[in-house]
Structures are given as structure tokens and as C-alpha cells.
């Protein structure tokens, strides 16, 4: 898959993975493993990007006498999910157009 397209999908997948409850790195990877292929080194910059974009917050909590970082979705992050789905409709239309061999008929 095109790497740019994949990163965009992954960002939204990560947001979806923490939308229900706060989560941590390893759990996010495990939760997403059935859906998309994501490695630790792919996840890390995505988390950082989402954090700097205000889509999630990071906090540390003690777990088995060590600190574990938890990721918590923000309101802005929540809003990204429906926004993505809406954008995806545009992509879906383009995909349809391509699938139909560039036929304008499908465009309405």
C-alpha cells in the first residue's frame, strides 16, 4: 500500500484503538494486529504526531513497579474519527471512478 495513504489510515486506527479506553503502546499494537500491520517503530511517530497535534494526551502510571505510558484521546482526537470517515467518502468515490475505468457515469 502507498506509504502516505497507510500512515493516514494508521493514525485514525490508533485513535479508534484508544477511543474506548486509555491504552498503552503494546496493547495498541496487539489490539490493532488483527486489523492492520503495525510495528512499534511505526506506532511511535504516529503517537508523537497525534500528541503534538493535540489529538491525544500522554500520562505515566505505575504498573508492576515501573512506569507505563498511557495514551488518552482528546476531544480533538475524537473529532478526527468522523472527519476521517467523511473524507474517506471522497476517496471511495475516486476509487469507484478508477475501478470503473474512468467512466464518468459513476460520478453522477
Amino acid at each position: 500500500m502507498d506509504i502516505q495513504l497507510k500512515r493516514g489510515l494508521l493514525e485514525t486506527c490508533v485513535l479508534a484503538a484508544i477511543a474506548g479506553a486509555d491504552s498503552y503502546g503494546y496493547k495498541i499494537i496487539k489490539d490493532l494486529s488483527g486489523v492492520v500491520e503495525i510495528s512499534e517503530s511505526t506506532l511511535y511517530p504516529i503517537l508523537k504526531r497525534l500528541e503534538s497535534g493535540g489529538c491525544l494526551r500522554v500520562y505515566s502510571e505505575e504498573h508492576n513497579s515501573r512506569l507505563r505510558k498511557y495514551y488518552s484521546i482528546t476531544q480533538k482526537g475524537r473529532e478526527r474519527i468522523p472527519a476521517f470517515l467523511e473524507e474517506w467518502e471522497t476517496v471511495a468515490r475516486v476509487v469507484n471512478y478508477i475501478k470503473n475505468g474512468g467512466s464518468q457515469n459513476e460520478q453522477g
Partner: protein
Amino acid sequence: MNKAEFLAELRTQIAARAPEDLERTVSYFAEIIDDRVEDGMSEAEAVATLEAPAQIAENFGSVQSAHKKPDSYDPALLHTINVYDINCPVFIVPRRENVELEYHEHERKHYTISVDNGTLNVVAVSSMKWYNWIGFGHGNFGFQPLVLGVPESFSGRIMIKTSNAEVSASDVKFNGGLLIRTSNARFNFRNLKISGEISAQTSNGRIACQFIDCGSLNAESSNGRIEAVHVKAAVEMSLVTSNGRVEVQHISAGQRIAVHSSNGRIYGTIDDKMRDFSIRSHTSNGTNSLPGDMPGGSKDLEVTTSNGTIDIRFCA
């Protein structure tokens, strides 16, 4: 490889990063290994599931290839600086000796920079793909600001054009003019001494001017409020917005002050005597502290709004 060896190797591979960033990255991978061990793997197995540190560093490299480049120019050889950017904040800051430019390029954006007969042209060239614009791809493209450093010895004209991003200028002093355009973003001007005109136009953003000494100030926004605090214009000052209030505190101008809004109140103080002005003012749906039409002064004051009060005091 055990955990300690893996982390040591990772540290070496990403050594070029900022210290805080480096520590965060290392602790992120330490946590992943700990979680896997807790899940039943041995340390060696946990490390084996991860990519090699060199691979990790390379993956990061492709994501964070944005880098900073400072360029330096002799102000004596320049009379005009033009910056055309897209979706990128621009900060104008003071520099001691040279005109300096700091910018970030990445795989989807670069700058063409040229000096031609005393004009420095800085033009952003974007190769963003359509899916970058609809939320795909690198989420943080374009958010790192372009920084223009201006020394007092610069004399001439600076024009900045960007979009969807703020422009700010602080503590800058030079002889000449400053023209700035952006959209959907605010302006912040603080502590400027510019002999010529400052012209600032935005939409959907507020304009804040504090401690400004200039030839003329023309600030225009739509859907944004305007604040002018301790602003002195040798010739004229014009503050225009719609759907926003205008606050002026201790402003003065040699010849003319014009403040216009709609759907916003206009209030504050002018550092002059009322009788120095020929005044024309009008509001509908609000009280007005100024006379509607009072000729006789050597300077002009025009204040109009609708759906808002006008409350201007003179404190010379």
C-alpha cells in the same frame, strides 16, 4: 540481544536527536519490551520481535526528515524581502547583524530562494499529493514556522504572504515597510519600530498590535477582533474589521485615525486632545461617546460600526 544491549544500540543509532526526544524514544521501546516479557516472552524473544535499532532509526528518519536550515544575508545588499509560503506560520524576529532565514523542508515541500538585484525571494514549493490535503500522510507537515530574522541595519521593504497560519513580528526595528497577508489566522505584532507603513490583512483571525511605532498602520480583518495598544503612527492608522470588536488603548496618529467595524463595539483611548480632530462617527443600535460630525480639528478621526457601542476617550 537482551534488553540492555538493544536499548544501548538504539541510543547509538538515534544519537543525533534532541536529548529529550532520545530519552522518550528509548523509554518507549523499554516499555514495549517490558510489556512483552510480562506477557510471557523472554527478554531475547521480546527483543527479537522488534525491528533492529538501525531499521528503527531509518524508519524515523523517513518520517521526521524535516530539518532546519539557517541562511544568512548581508542587509546592506538587500532592499526587498519577499516571502511566499503556504499553510506555514511566519515569525519575524530581531537579529544582530544579518538577515537570517530559518525554514524547514521535507519530502513534500521545499523552498526556492534567490537574490536578484537586491531582492531576496523566498518561495515555498509544495508537492503535497491530494491525499496529504485531506488528512492522509504526514500529519505535521507545514506546522514548523519559517523564521525571518531582521537586523536594525536592514532598510527596505518586507512582504510576507502565507495562508491558514499566523504571522507574528516582535522586537523588530528597521527603516522601511512591512506588508503581510494571510488567511484564516491571526496576526501578533509586538514592540515594533518601523519607519514606513505596516499593512496587515487577514480573514477570520484577530489582529493584536502592542507597542508599535510606525509611519502608518493599516490593519484589516474579517470576522476577527482588532487590538491596538500603545500604537503610534506618524501619519495615519486604519483599523478595519467586520464581526469583531476593536479595542484601542493609547493610540495616536499624525494626520488620521479611522476605525471601522460592523457587529462589534469600538472602545478605548486616544492619546490626543479631542479638539485636535475633525470627527465623523456613526453607529446604529448602540450608544456613541463621540460627536457624529464635528469639523474644525487639524486631524481626522472616523469611527463607524453598526450593532455596537462606540466609547472612545481622549487622554492627552
